[in-house]
């Protein structure tokens, strides 16, 4: 795998470097630069490599050209140039030849009169690739107050002798304080040692505070023995403490650098520092000095350690221990061990114990075990953690014995340590159990549970019969973690005998044990046990564990008939049901209850069932909305809203947004609506924008600032117009009408007939379709309800509900045609078991849904229907059930579906409810048609906005979108799109729209292979007003016969508007009319008689015939309304 990647990488590099060798496609440098700039910033690594490789191929001249175009900050943006130049520098940094070219060009540019900030930019670029060869040029800027800093930093990056020398020379020559500071700073960073005498000289000459600091630092970094005295004095003057001038630090770093070469000198100084640090109680200085000493081979390290121990300062001692070279130093290790055994200082104990634990000093376990009983919490914590780290039997026993302590803190420490102990701790725990106090016993039971020690089942079980409540309840909790199916008999007995407080835990244990058995074995076992029990309700949770329908029935029946504890047990069992079906009995309970307490409980149960179900967002939304009706507390409502925010449904967003007006719920509601909106760009539109605007104003949580920024970003990137609109206002039938005949028959009716018939059915519709509680109800009698408006392509959202009855059935007519099917899956006699959402009346195309996604009859369902052209997709409750299927014309099977028609809600003799009906129309362009004049003249259409049937070539990057051909160059240029036919003499008319800097071309009389500009003829298509095309050759302007005849510039519409162009090719005569102005009118044979303008061969220029083509140049361009007339 790695190798393959490496090979690919190498290949990539080869290709890239091959490209650098010559200009791409034989174009001029100006064109290459312009083309590449139009690509930047490159969106993909591939484009980036290509565009930059093209740029690099233009060499020094190209880079100078780019830099020459840079504007001073505040004027025009340099964005594209920034990308181009930095990309160039990054790409050549590791290639000597091209790097030198680039560095050379940057140097030349720096010698030109540029704005100082532009120069600073160039110097910062040069810093990335500069070498010794660039030192001279960089040096010339060292004296410039503004540029000396970037220039000096570039020299630091070069880091050669010559660079150092240049810095030093400037330092000596300059009297400008700021320049000198920059030089000293750079010398300090580059480590140029020859500057030492000069720096010392300056230090002795009473420098300013800032300069003193720079000098001290630089000398600390580069100084030799010669600097010791000066730096030592400075540090002493600073009292060996931190000061702004950094004297002490500089001194210590100098000592550190001299430690190998001048050990004796350093030793003397370091010892002085250790003593001085003690005097002023500055342990950090002493640690730094001790570190120096400990790094010296001849030091008596043990003395340092001994002293640190003797002094007992935990900061110093820890510092010494951290830098102490204990390897192969048995003596020191023994010293630590002996000290551990003898010292009384808690600081020393803690430091040494931590150290021993960290370094795996098993020999110290006995001492540490002793300290584990310390009365000092710091020492005790260190000891327990270290013992757990060190491991081994002895540590384990020591930790376990702490559990016997009466001190809760001690027991906690031991428990935490034991939980991390690597190895079997069960028997050791068991052995100390009896002798432990309550806290210890509780800790042991928790540890047993934590590691699920089934071997300790008996120990846990036995505690259930004791009198000690603390221990008993800990044991009860642990029981579920140690029980298996073998213990079931025991556990059932326990369940019957136990007091109510222990029962939930025992039930959990029983369920855990039942899980060892398959579901079908669980049910008979539990029901068998229930038969002989007088407290049947105790077994409900065990029944629930099987998850079977039979068990559910037993419990729901019990709930309905029983009271008190039995009722409680039943609802508890239902709440923890494993399958989602339990939602139905739960809803039934909720709908039948008026008891607030009961409703609160049931709501909790409903929410928990929905939350933990793996249902789709759509289904969760439907039931959360139900649950909201029963919610009793703000806490419940907030939780429901929070969950609704994760469902990703448009209706859910509206539902949540509604609660932004309730103060106790507003924050959660706003978050929920926001979550849905910003995760789903397809919901964008007026309504969503309005909601997000309100969300922005409502949010007040700590992250609100971030959230508002996300919202702003979403609104900037997505349309704030259009989107879903409501078809049903929840109050009346506004926007709806009755059904008159079918579309075919209606078309044959006169307007008057239709109006009369319409009036009649509208009256009937008002009786059949009523609005109740914001829902649209079909009573079961009457005819379809139709939208007043007609729809072509659209997305539609609708919630629907069937009511139980003899034959529940309904449907949605799309474009006046039956239908997206809705029915009761129980009606197997008519084949309804396939589910709803199919295109029921299809004969040639699929009519059945892909899967059953229906909710139970009596519950809400939600459709998302998308119809584009003659194809329909349906999502039922979040599941795709109809996948882009053609809807056949039921009324006239010889015809395709009507292009536009009304939407209808079907009446099928059973009661149905609808709510939340939304529609979003999808724009559908009319196919382009020739004007009558063009038709008469003999034009024919090559592209009418619907298909590329008359075209060949790259049909992937050139796609039809909203009636246009859009070129999305996926990689490189995007390639070419050719007409199928060849044309000799013709009038070609088309429209095009450019993006900023866009480049394309119209090839004519070209073969299907090769660069059309040469093997045929290219009429330039180019945004030649873009700044990147400032320096074009005249024969490159838009409309030019590329390289041959220039066109007039200045007649393009602004970018983003459509241009209309006509091209007339008649023999050698070519004419281009752009937006009504003739911009080119010439003879190609004449123009190329004495050689071409671009001095290149154009072998295909005089081709008799060929294809017409759009020639991709890597930019997004659009075309439309393309037609042609052939001239004889």
């Amino acid at each position: 795998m790695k190798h393959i990647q490496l090979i690919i990488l190498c290949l990539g590099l080869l290709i890239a470097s091959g490209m650098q060798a010559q200009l791409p496609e034989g174009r001029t440098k100006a064109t290459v630069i312009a083309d590449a700039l139009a690509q930047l910033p490159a969106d993909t690594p591939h484009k980036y490599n290509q565009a930059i490789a093209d740029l690099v191929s233009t060499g020094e001249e190209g880079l100078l050209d780019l830099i020459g175009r840079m504007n001073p900050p505040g004027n025009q943006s340099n964005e594209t140039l920034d990308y181009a130049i930095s990309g160039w520098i990054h790409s050549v940094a590791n290639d000597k030849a091209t790097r030198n070219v680039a560095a050379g060009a940057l140097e030349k540019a720096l010698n030109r009169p540029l704005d100082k900030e532009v120069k600073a930019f160039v110097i910062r670029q040069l810093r990335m690739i500069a070498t010794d060869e660039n030192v001279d040029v960089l040096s010339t800027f060292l004296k410039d107050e503004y540029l000396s800093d970037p220039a000096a930093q570039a020299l630091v990056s070069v880091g050669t002798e010559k660079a150092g020398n240049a810095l030093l020379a400037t330092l000596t020559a300059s009297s400008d304080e700021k320049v000198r500071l920059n030089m000293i700073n750079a010398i300090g960073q580059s480590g140029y040692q020859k500057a030492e005498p000069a720096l010392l000289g300056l230090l002795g000459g009473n420098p300013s505070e800032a300069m003193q600091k720079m000098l001290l630092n630089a000398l600390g970094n580069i100084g030799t023995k010669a600097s010791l005295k000066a730096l030592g004095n400075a540090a002493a003057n600073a009292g060996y403490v931190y000061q702004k001038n950094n004297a002490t630090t500089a001194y210590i770093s100098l000592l550190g650098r001299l430690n190998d070469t001048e050990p004796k000198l350093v030793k003397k100084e370091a010892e002085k520092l250790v003593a001085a640090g003690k005097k002023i109680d500055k342990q950090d200085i002493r640690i730094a000095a001790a570190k120096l000493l400990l790094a010296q081979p001849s030091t008596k390290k043990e003395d340092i350690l001994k002293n640190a121990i003797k002094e007992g300062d935990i900061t110093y001692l820890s510092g010494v221990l951290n830098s102490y070279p204990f390897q192969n130093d048995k003596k020191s290790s023994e010293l630590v061990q002996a000290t551990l055994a003898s010292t009384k200082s808690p600081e020393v104990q803690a430091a040494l114990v931590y150290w021993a634990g960290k370094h795996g000093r098993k020999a110290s376990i006995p001492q540490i075990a002793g300290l584990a009983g310390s009365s000092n919490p710091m020492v005790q914590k260190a000891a327990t953690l270290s013992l757990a780290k060190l491991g081994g039997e002895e540590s384990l026993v020591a930790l376990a014995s702490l559990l016997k302590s009466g001190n809760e803190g001690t027991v906690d420490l031991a428990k935490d340590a034991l939980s991390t102990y690597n190895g079997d701790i069960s028997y050791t725990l068991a052995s100390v159990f009896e002798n432990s106090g309550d806290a210890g016993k509780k800790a042991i039971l928790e540890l047993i549970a934590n590691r699920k020690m089934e071997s300790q089942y008996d120990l846990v079980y036995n505690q259930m019969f004791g009198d000690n409540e603390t221990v008993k309840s800990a044991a009860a909790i642990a029981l579920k973690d140690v029980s298996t199916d073998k213990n079931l008999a025991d556990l059932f007995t326990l369940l019957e005998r136990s007091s109510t407080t222990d029962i939930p835990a025992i039930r959990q244990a029983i369920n855990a044990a039942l899980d060892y058995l398959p579901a079908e074995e669980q049910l008979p076992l539990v029901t068998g046990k229930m038969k002989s029990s007088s407290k049947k309700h105790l077994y409900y949770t065990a029944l629930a564990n099987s998850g079977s329908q039979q068990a559910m029935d037993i419990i729901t029946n019990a709930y309905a008939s029983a009271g008190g504890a039995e009722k409680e047990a039943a609802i508890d069992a239902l709440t923890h049901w494993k399958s989602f079906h339990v939602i139905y009995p739960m809803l039934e309970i909720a709908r039948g209850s008026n008891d607030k307490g009961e409703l609160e409980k049931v709501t909790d149960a409903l929410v928990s069932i929905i939350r933990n179900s793996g249902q789709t967002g759509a289904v969760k939304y439907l039931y959360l909305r139900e649950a909201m009706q029963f919610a009793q507390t703000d806490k419940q409502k907030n939780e429901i809203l929070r969950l609704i925010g994760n469902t990703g449904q448009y209706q859910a967003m509206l539902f949540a947004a509604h609660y932004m007006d309730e103060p106790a719920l507003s924050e959660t509601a706003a978050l929920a609506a926001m979550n849905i909106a910003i995760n789903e760009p397809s919901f964008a539109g007026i309504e969503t924008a309005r909601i997000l605007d309100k969300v922005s104003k409502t949010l007040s949580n700590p992250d609100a600032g971030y959230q508002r920024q996300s919202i702003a970003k979403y609104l900037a990137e997505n349309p704030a117009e259009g989107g879903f609109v409501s078809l049903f206002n929840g109050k009346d039938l506004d926007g709806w009408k009755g059904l008159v005949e079918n579309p075919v028959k209606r078309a044959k009716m006169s307007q008057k007939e239709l109006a009369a018939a319409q009036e009649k059915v509208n009256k009937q519709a008002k009786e059949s379709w009523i609005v109740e509680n914001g829902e649209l109800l079909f009573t079961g009698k009457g005819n379809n309800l139709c939208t007043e408006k007609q729809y072509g392509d659209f997305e539609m959202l609708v919630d629907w509900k069937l009511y139980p009855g003899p034959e529940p059935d309904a449907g949605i007519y799309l474009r006046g045609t039956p239908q997206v099917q809705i029915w009761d899956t129980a009606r197997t006699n008519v084949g309804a078991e396939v589910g709803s959402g199919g295109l029921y009346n299809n004969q040639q195309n699929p009519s059945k849904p892909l899967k059953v996604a229906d909710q139970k009859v009596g519950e809400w369902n939600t459709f998302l229907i998308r119809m584009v052209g003659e194809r329909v997709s349906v999502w039922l409750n979040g599941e795709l059930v109809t996948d882009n299927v053609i809807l056949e014309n039921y009324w006239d099977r010889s015809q395709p579906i009507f292009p536009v028609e009304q939407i209808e809600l079907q009446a099928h003799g059973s009661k149905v409810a609808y709510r939340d009906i939304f529609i979003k129309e999808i724009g559908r362009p009319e196919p382009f048609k020739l004007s009558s004049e063009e038709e008469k003249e003999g034009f024919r259409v090559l592209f009418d906005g619907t298909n590329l049937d008359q075209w060949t070539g790259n049909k992937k990057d050139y796609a039809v979108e909203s009636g246009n051909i859009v070129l999305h160059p996926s990689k490189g240029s995007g390639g070419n799109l050719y007409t199928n036919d060849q044309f000799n003499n013709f009038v070609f008319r088309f429209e095009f729209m450019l993006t900023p800097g866009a480049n394309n071309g119209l090839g004519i009389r070209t073969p299907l292979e090769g660069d059309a500009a040469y093997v045929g003829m290219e009429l330039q298509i180019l945004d030649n007003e873009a700044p990147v095309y400032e320096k074009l050759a005249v024969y490159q302007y838009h409309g030019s016969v590329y390289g041959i005849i220039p066109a007039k510039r200045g007649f393009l519409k602004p970018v983003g508007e459509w241009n209309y162009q006509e091209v007339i090719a008649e023999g050698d005569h070519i004419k281009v009319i752009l937006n009504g102005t003739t911009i080119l009118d010439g003879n190609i044979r004449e123009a190329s008689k004495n050689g071409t303008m671009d001095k290149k061969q154009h072998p295909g220029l005089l081709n008799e015939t060929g294809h017409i083509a759009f020639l991709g140049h890597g930019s997004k361009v659009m075309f439309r309304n393309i037609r042609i007339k052939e001239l004889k």
Partner: protein
Amino acid sequence: MTSRRQFLKTMGGVTLLTVVPRNVLGKGMIAPSDELTKGIIGVGGMGRGHIPYDNTRVVAMCDVDKTHLSKAAAMVKEKTSLYHDFRDLILDKNVDIVHIATPPHWHGLMSMEAAKAGKDIFCEKPMTRTIGEGKRVREAIAQHGNIFRLNTWFRFKDPFYGLGTPVKPLKKLVDSGLLGWPLKVTISKHTGFDWKFYWVGKTHLEPQPVPQELDYDMWLGPAPYKPYNAHRVHSTFRGYWDYDGGGLGDMGQHYIDPVQYMLGKDNTSPVKVEVDAPQQHPDAVGTWRSITYTYEDGCQIILWGGDYGEADTPYISGPNGNVYKNFVCDIPDWEKKLADFPEPQAQNTNFLECVRNRQKFALNESNGHRSCTIVNMGVVALQLNRTLEFDPVNEVFVNDAEANRLLDQPVRAPWIV
């Protein structure tokens, strides 16, 4: 004169032996004499959030923007020393712990200065803006024996972000070996992480007059001098490479540090970083599609930007199983299998306790530097738009001179990093 710190040292020993006062004060309370003090550098939005952190008392604050400083001063009841130059705050004898809540281009420098002054340090993420600065902070702290805490906490507490679980059980699962090895960790919107792509810079900044309340030169400090524009500073600085690395800089260490811990990579770094991103502007940070890190043993961390990546990606994927958001694991019976294993090693998560007993904090200059290195590897690879190889021992890029120039950037006088 006895410094407050010295007083603390001597008194501290006594109080530790006397158990009574603490019990009297109740759990979690610290006797006033035992209370550690802090000074906060940078009291913009983030820094003001540091005022109530831990059981410490604010005694000093510092900012180069007068408006920030006066806002912060209004939040503290007791008398507080207010500074303009952070070195004055570091010099303040009353300060035990220096909190650094400035933009990242200052973190390295200030940490080092505080270390030299013998102060303990509480530093915001990302730890440093370059890999080189991180190395030197680590060195400085080793030399002076300070206690350093990096302020992200997901390696030891809180369910992090959209993942829905704290890291401890994940660590236990990884350590158990049940998932197999090597592991691939995916940090994306789909596993619960938002890269906050609104932290992008503007590519065309008009020079503007510097507002009176701001010392812009001091705000820039070691960073290259560029003309002032309000978008460079304060709440939008993350969009500029000179000061931070966009959403990756902001959130990267939060998201990646727990992964380093989980994978047991605290002492090493990946050997390779690959980026898939649009070209980056040399000054303004942009967005990216993915950043992939590979360790020597084949473990990988994959960052998906924006909406990229697969919706059903596991958070951790191994040869024997996957872990998804909310700790959903697809290994049969994993809970039971996992119970046999010990809990992960305890971590020192009480910073004040660490300060008192001079132990390294759970997230310190050493492992903090390593997780920040991953962030900064990504930053460099993004800037260069190419795959980089890294040597985790010497902490340099392999065969890429330019990348190595970004390891460590020269600083402006009179600053020293």
